């Protein structure tokens, strides 16, 4: 089979048979009705677009606040640990001061 000739014959058949340009009945009216319906919906479309645009800044703000909270919490935890340590030094010192008068270990009690 001569494939090249077959290809040319089939393409010639396609060329000789252009598709119809018939337009379905009332097609223009349907298009206009759809476009006018879409125009009325534009306000909700605008609102939806505005909301979508706000997503990125909101996520950014949320991340910043989250990071700041994390850092602030860490600082608070460190301060609390230091305060506990200081308190322990203070209480030990108080004990030493208060019990300093109890006496030397080898002193006899009469």
């Amino acid at each position, binding site marked *: *089979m*001569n*494939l*090249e*000739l*077959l*290809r040319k*014959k*089939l*393409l*010639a*058949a*396609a*060329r*000789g*048979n*252009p*598709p*119809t*340009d*018939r*337009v*379905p009945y009332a*097609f*223009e009216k*349907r*298009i*206009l009705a*759809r*476009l*006018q319906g*879409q*125009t009325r919906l534009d306000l909700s479309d605008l609102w939806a677009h505005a909301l979508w645009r706000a997503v990125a800044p909101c996520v950014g703000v949320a991340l910043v606040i989250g990071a700041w909270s994390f850092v602030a919490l860490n600082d608070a935890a460190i301060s609390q640990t230091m305060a506990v340590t200081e308190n322990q030094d203070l209480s030990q010192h108080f004990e030493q001061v208060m019990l300093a008068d109890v006496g030397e270990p080898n002193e006899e009690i009469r």
Partner: protein
Amino acid sequence: MERSDTELIAAVLKGDASSFEPLVEKYSPRLFATARRYARRESEVEDIVQEIWLKAFHKLASFRGDAPFEHWLMRLAVRTCYDFLRGHQRNRESNFTDITEPESDWLERFVAQPESASEDVDAAKQLVARLLEQLSPPARLVITLLEIEDRPVKEIARLTGWSVPLVKVRAFRARAEMKKVLARLAREKYL
């Protein structure tokens, strides 16, 4: 008095959507003929043309007016048809066992006497439609524009948005793809 395309477009851009209707009436026949090259079912053809008009309406502000409106619209149409082909790629590797009797008879006549097989027969038209459906979307698009509609390469580049070298490369590959499909037809039919 009939308004020109430029006047109608200006009116639409100012907010008068009803001025779009004369444009739809004027250019829909051409769009339907174009869409029917790429879709077989009438419902799909109407969907494609509707989509072209919706895109045209929403992108109308981007029409600069340095070329006729028809050229801008046809560029939009070709790209929409290409998107349709890409979105509706079925199993293109289907076999030819379901070809009809008239198509089979036409092929028999071609094998017996190639020069006498007429192109002006329904069977030949159905066979070529079946053949085109087996091609990849870029191959089908370029074969349709270049070999069936006889458009120059530069015009195809403008319509598709491809560069001229890319159109040529795709045309070369499309012809090779067609030959492969025909070879498969010959093998399945006659072996």
